[in-house]
């Protein structure tokens, strides 16, 4: 059962770019080796942290969206915890949220279709229907 997760982690600000890329590649490899799939990787760049984390006030934010199952996520989190360069991480489960959003979009799409047809179809449909109903009602 593949679920959709977002993993955001912060890497210390004093790592080099290539080390950062190596780190990200190693985490991606963990995911793919464990049977998951990486949907996207985003480097959000260096940001100021809202509070001191391990005496750092800045950090490199990285966002990974992955499809994985629970065991793989535990493994990934274990690795994140062990890696010394990663100072904070959070995993958020997004599949239920995605389902809800898709449902809303689907409802909106059907609603729009019904309301965007009206220009031609509905008045024509309504015109013959109305006299037909009147005829039936009177008869």
């Amino acid at each position: 059962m593949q679920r959709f997760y977002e993993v955001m982690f912060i890497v210390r600000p004093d790592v080099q770019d290539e080390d950062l890329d190596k780190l990200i590649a190693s985490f991606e490899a963990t995911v793919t080796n464990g049977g998951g799939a990486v949907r996207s990787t985003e480097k959000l760049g260096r940001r100021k942290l809202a509070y001191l984390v391990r005496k750092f006030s800045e950090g490199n934010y990285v966002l990974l969206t992955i499809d994985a199952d629970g065991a793989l996520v535990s493994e990934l989190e274990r690795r994140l915890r062990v890696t010394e360069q990663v100072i904070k991480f959070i995993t958020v489960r997004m599949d239920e949220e995605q389902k809800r959003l898709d449902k809303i979009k689907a409802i909106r799409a059907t609603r729009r279709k019904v309301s965007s047809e009206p220009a031609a179809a509905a008045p024509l449909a309504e015109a013959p229907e109305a006299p037909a109903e009147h005829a039936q009602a009177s008869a």
Partner: protein
Amino acid sequence: MSDETTQKAPAASGPRSAGPGAGAPASGPAGAPGGRKFFRRKKVCKFCTEKIDAISYRDVNLLKQFVAERGKIVPRRLTGVCTTHQRRLTRAIKQARNIALLPFAVKY
């Protein structure tokens, strides 16, 4: 004693009848936090009107509007957010706090 009770009863039913009569939500007299008796004008939920579905912990600018100066989450009677969105907002703010995008507490 009986005079006190009779006086209190009409006073209590007064604003209550004025509430639905004016068409405002029941947060008029009930939601008077500082002891104000008349009601606030209807505040609309920003997420409902703008049809924002997903409140992500990542958009700090949106979340910052609902966080006070000291970093505390603003109650929904002040911001006018509806319950479902307030719950999602709270969840997002707490997630953002965990990932150091928002502070837990700001020192004065």
